[in-house]
């Protein structure tokens, strides 16, 4: 109990850091993931190749390696002055976007082909038919896998803690260096992660329920 009470503000800071990194990365992952999924089913070949390359590259690279690239190569080669939070969001967000893209694509595949054909037949462009007809019907099937992906993302953000970001994992490192009992630290840190992952769980359950009613 001492660990928590003595360092309440540090815990709060770490908790806030993990939540912030998770939420911002998730938003990046959703936007990029949907665009990449659109690329993968696009009638334009170069876009399909780009989408496939994006997914293959990011999904099959260990996240730690992506962090190494983001923190040591990107600042050297491209942008020297980026904030560590931005780099962490880029690594987590792009990595997760590959998984989101595949979940969205599997959702798109559950919408009968005739829906897209009918949309194109009345003169909607590809982007319009995706946005107005296919994606709204795909959403229902994308929600369950997305919740797993975002829970995984929450836990993945711990890697950012090892790269000097203030988050829960970072706090646990600091506290164990301060000499607190490692078991107690981990119990509290685990509880904090559970709060976030359970919140995601609940949020998606509500979302799933909403979408079921809407039809």
């Amino acid at each position, binding site marked *: 109990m001492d660990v928590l009470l003595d360092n309440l503000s540090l815990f709060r800071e770490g908790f806030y850091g993990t939540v912030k990194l998770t939420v911002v990365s998730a938003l990046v992952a959703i936007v990029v993931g949907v665009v990449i999924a659109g690329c993968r089913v696009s009638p334009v070949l170069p876009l399909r190749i780009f989408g496939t390359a994006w997914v293959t590259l990011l999904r099959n690279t260990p996240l730690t390696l992506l962090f190494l690239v983001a923190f040591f190569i990107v600042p050297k080669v491209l942008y020297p002055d980026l904030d560590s939070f931005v780099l962490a969001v880029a690594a987590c967000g792009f990595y997760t976007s590959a998984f989101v893209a595949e979940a969205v694509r599997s959702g798109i595949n559950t919408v009968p082909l005739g829906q897209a*054909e*009918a949309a194109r*037949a*009345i*003169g*909607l*462009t*590809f982007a319009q038919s995706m946005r107005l007809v296919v994606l709204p*019907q795909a959403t229902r099937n994308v929600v369950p896998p997305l919740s797993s992906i975002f829970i995984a993302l929450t836990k993945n953000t711990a890697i950012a803690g090892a790269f000097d970001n203030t988050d829960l994992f970072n706090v646990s490192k600091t506290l164990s260096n301060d000499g607190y009992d490692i078991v107690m630290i981990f119990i509290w840190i685990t509880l904090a992660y559970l709060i976030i992952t359970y919140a995601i769980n609940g949020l998606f359950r509500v979302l799933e329920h909403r979408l079921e009613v809407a039809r």
Partner: protein
Amino acid sequence: MTEVSVTKDAKPAADDLVVLKGVNKHFGALHVLQDIDLTIARGEVVVVIGPSGSGKSTLCRTINRLETIDSGAISIDGKPLPQEGKELAKLRADVGMVFQSFNLFAHKTVLENVMLGQVKVRRTAKAEAEEKARGLLDRVGVGSQADKYPAQLSGGQQQRVAIARALAMGPKVMLFDEPTSALDPEMINEVLEVMQQLARDGMTMVVVTHEMGFARSAANRVVFMADGRIVEEAVPDQFFSNPRSDRAKDFLSKILKH
């Protein structure tokens, strides 16, 4: 199989709305469309019939490029079909299409189905689009169902909504890809009546169907396809009473002897 030379009405070229020239298409090893030449004049109702797998649905779908072709040329109202993109979308808006499986947008109400294209493609104001949509739904006899979702309607009602959705774009030509093949027998007539009315109103129509009654009564011309070729073209009376090719005789004897 005997090939019969195809006679065509000599119509002035200016009145040709849909022109297919030397169209070929393969599905893998299957040569599904073989050197198709077909011209459809403005206001003409052309019914395409033939055995399953003869390529008639594929032919219908190539006209608005839902199926790409390997060689040949297709033009609509004098303009060749463009590549996939904004231009093609613009052209498709002028070509109404009715599918065998209706394909109404499942997440939108009947009214929204008929309004979507007007609002998003034609940029019509919502109020105006709704008025037109309600008018069209009344015309096809499903005005009272406007606020329901497609799944709540019978097949015949859904197909009539699909016709209204296509008409809402003010198309130059309507393509019907087996519009009654997925319907229960008692619902076929309500759809055919709507189509017959359209034909009387002077709409240019390409209809792929197995409804010989419709072909007889509404068509200006019957196109008979078999094995990816147009085997015979004739006015309905001539085709049904005196088909020239053996393939057509064989086909008609199989379907009319019941």
